[in-house]
C-alpha cells in the first residue's frame, strides 16, 4: 500500500515536470562553424558584452544589424487585432529572417553574403504569416470570441499567457519561438505542438 503511494507520488511529480531542455549549440542558430565567423563563437552573431546597439527597444546587448525594411502585415476580415509594423523582439528576428540583412552582418560587418532562403526566409511580406506585434489582451479575446483571455488562461509554461508569452502585452515571434532553443522542440518552439497544443494555448477552437 505504501509503495503504491510512493509510486503515484513519483509519477505525479514526473507528470508535472514534463519539461524538455535544449540548448543552442548544434541548432540552426549555432553559427560557430561558419567560415565568416572567424571567432568561432555562437552568441556573437547577435550579442556583444560591450558597446551594444541600444537603438532598438528590448534588444539585449544587440550586436546584429537591424532591418530597415517596411513590412506588409497580415490582414483578414476576421482579424480583430490591430497589426502594424513589426516591433520589439520580432524586429530582431526579422533582421535575419526578412532576407534583407545578411546573417553575418554583425559587429561592424555590413556587406555579408549569406542570406536566408527556403522555409527559413519569411521575407518582408508578412501577409502569409501569423500576425505579430499586436496587443493581445482580454478585450481582444472577448471581441474575437475564439481566443482565450491572456490575463487568466494558463500557458502551460508556468503562468498565464500574458505572463509567459507576451512582451509588454504584445504577441511577438518569441511568443511561440525560443531563439535559444531553451525547450528543445523542433522549429525552436517554446512548447510541444503535438495535438497543436501550442496553437491551442491561445486559440479557443
Amino acid at each position, binding site marked *: 500500500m505504501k509503495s*503504491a503511494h510512493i509510486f503515484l507520488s513519483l509519477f*505525479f511529480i514526473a507528470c508535472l515536470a514534463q519539461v524538455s531542455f535544449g540548448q543552442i549549440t548544434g541548432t540552426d542558430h549555432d553559427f560557430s562553424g561558419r567560415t565568416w565567423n572567424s571567432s568561432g563563437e555562437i552568441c556573437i552573431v547577435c550579442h556583444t558584452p560591450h558597446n551594444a546597439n541600444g537603438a532598438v527597444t528590448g534588444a539585449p546587448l544587440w550586436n546584429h544589424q537591424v532591418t530597415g525594411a517596411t513590412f506588409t502585415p497580415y490582414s483578414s476580415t*476576421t482579424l480583430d487585432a490591430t497589426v502594424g509594423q513589426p516591433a520589439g523582439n520580432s524586429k530582431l528576428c526579422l533582421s535575419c529572417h526578412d532576407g534583407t540583412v545578411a546573417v553575418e552582418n554583425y559587429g561592424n560587418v555590413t556587406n555579408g553574403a549569406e542570406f536566408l532562403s527556403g522555409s527559413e526566409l519569411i521575407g518582408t511580406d508578412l*501577409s*502569409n*504569416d501569423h500576425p505579430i506585434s499586436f496587443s493581445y489582451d482580454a478585450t481582444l479575446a472577448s471581441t474575437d470570441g475564439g481566443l482565450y483571455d491572456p490575463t487568466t488562461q494558463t500557458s502551460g509554461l508556468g503562468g498565464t499567457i500574458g505572463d509567459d508569452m507576451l512582451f509588454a502585452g504584445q504577441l511577438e515571434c518569441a511568443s511561440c519561438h525560443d531563439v535559444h532553443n531553451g525547450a528543445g522542440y523542433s522549429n525552436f518552439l517554446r512548447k510541444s505542438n503535438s*495535438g*497543436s497544443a501550442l496553437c*491551442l494555448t491561445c486559440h479557443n*477552437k
Partner: protein
Amino acid sequence: MKINISLLLYILLGIPAFVNSQPIVNTKHNLSVSGPGSVKSTIETEVCVFCHTPHNSNPQIPLWNRNNSSAIYTIYDNSISNTFNANTGQPDGSSLLCLSCHDGTVALGNVLSSSSDIFDGAGTKMPAGSRGHLGIDLSDDHPISFVFDAALATSDGQLRYPPVYPATLDVNSKVQCSSCHNAHNNMYGKFLVASNEYSDLCKKCHDMQYWNNSSHSTSSATWNGSGTNPWAHIETPFPTVSQNACENCHQPHSAGGKVRLLKSSLEENNCLDCHNGNVAQSSKDIATELAKPYKHDVAGYNLIHNPNETTSFASHVECEDCHNPHAANSALASAPYASGKLAGVGGVNQNGSWVKPISNEYELCYKCHADNALSVSSTTRQIEQNNTRLEFDLDNPSYHPVVGAGKNPNSPSLIPPYSESSIIYCTDCHASNDSNSPAGPHGSIYPRILKYRYEKADYTQESSSTYELCYSCHSRTSILSNVSFKKHSRHIVNAKAPCNACHDPHGISYSQGNSTNNSHLINFDLDIVKPLMGQLIYEDLGNGRGRCYLTCHGKRHRRYGY
C-alpha cells in the same frame, strides 16, 4: 482502503486533459492521430496543421496550409431547378478551402508546410461514400458562392434577407459553406453554426409561405420502426416530424433528388416514406391507397411536375399537384371550401382563371379535369363534355351541387342531412372506397376512383350494393318506390338499366343542353339508349311529368309519358 491505481491515474491525468480539451480536438475535424473520427492520420500529431500554417500560407487568409483542388465543379443552378433564382458560378471564397478536402480530389495530407503527405504518407483522400465526400458534382448539394441580396429575396419570394445570425454571408454577400458550417465548432453536430432542430438553421434564410401552420411543421409523429427508415438520409435525425422539419423531405448535401434537393428523385417517395402508416397515422396512409387499381397514379410520372405550372402543362400527377407540403394542415372545412389538407395549392376557378391559393376544393380538380380535360368521360353520351367546369356550371339545366346548390327544388330521395340546398365535394363521390382511409381521391377499388360501387353496365341486377354510390345520398327505398320518377323501379329493377344509362352524374352544360331536355341530369348513355327514327328525346313536362322518344332494350318509347 484499496486504491485503484487505474482510477487514480485517470483522475490525475484524464480529468485535467478533459477539462482542458478544445472543441475541435474532439471533432472529426481533428484529423491527427488523436482524432475521434474514422478518417484520421496515422502519423501526424498536430491538429491545426491540416488546414493552417503560421508561415508561408496560401491563400494568406486564413493562414491556409492546403493545396486547393483544381476541379471544375458541376453546380446547382437554374438548369437543375427552375425555382432557383440566384446566379451561381464555380465555387469561390472560403468554400474552396472546404472543398480542398471535401471534394475528394486532394489528399488529406497534402499541405504546404510539408513536402510529404502528413496524413498517412500514402495520399489518402476523403473516402468516397462517406458523408463528408461531396465530390465534384455539387448539383446535389445546397448551392454556394452566390450573391444573396434583397433582390434575390424579392424575386424568390420565400427567402429572408438579411439572413438571421448566426447564418452569415461572406464579405461579398455570398452564401458559402461557412454560412451554415463552422469548421471549428461541432457543438450542434455537422459543424452547423446553430441547431437545426425544427430546421431553425434553414429558416434563418428560408421563409416558406404557410410553413408555420403546416402539419409538417407541428406534427409530433414518430417513426414506428417498420419498413424503410424515412430519415435514413439524416445523419442524426430527431425523433419527430416537426423537429426534422425541412429535412423530412429535403437533403442539403448529396441529395437523392437533385431538383430542389429532395431526398428522393421519385417525387412521391419523399411523401410515401412517411405516409405509409409508419410515421403518419393510418388515416394518412396514402401508400395503401395508391396500391389500389384505380388511383391518381403518382408513380406513373417523374420530374414532369413543375411548381411554377399554372393552367398549361403536360399530363402528369404528383402528390404536390394537390398538396403543398409546406402548407397542408388539419383545418376542417365544409363544401365547397377547401380544407387544410389542400392549403396553399393553386387551381382554376369557375371562371377558368388560375388562382393560388384555391378557396374551393373543386378549383383544385379543375386544374386537370376542366379545360385541360386530362381525363375523358367513360360513357359515350348524347351530349359529350369532358370539361367538368362546364358540367358543374350553375347556369346549367342540371348538375350535381358542387359549385352551388342544385337546380331541383324537389328531390325527395335525399337522405338527411342532405337537402336540396346542400353543396357537396367532388370527393364525396371520388374518394377511397374505405371509410377509414384518408379522405380524397387517392385510390379506390372502384373505377374512376369512386367511393362506392357504381355499376354502369347494362342489365345489371339492382341491389343495395350495385348502386351503392347513388344510394349513399339518394334513398334506395325512395327511389324504388318511385317517389320522384314514377318508373324508376321498372327501369332499374325490372329492366336492369343502370342509373348511368339515363343520368349524367356531373351535369349538362348550358351551352349544349337545355332545361326541357336535360333536367334531372338526363343525358343518355348511347351504348344503351338508342334513337328512335333518328330521334332521341327526353322532355320535361314539369310537375314530375315527362316523356321519352327513344329505343331501349328493344323497346320503342314513342313519346312514352309519365
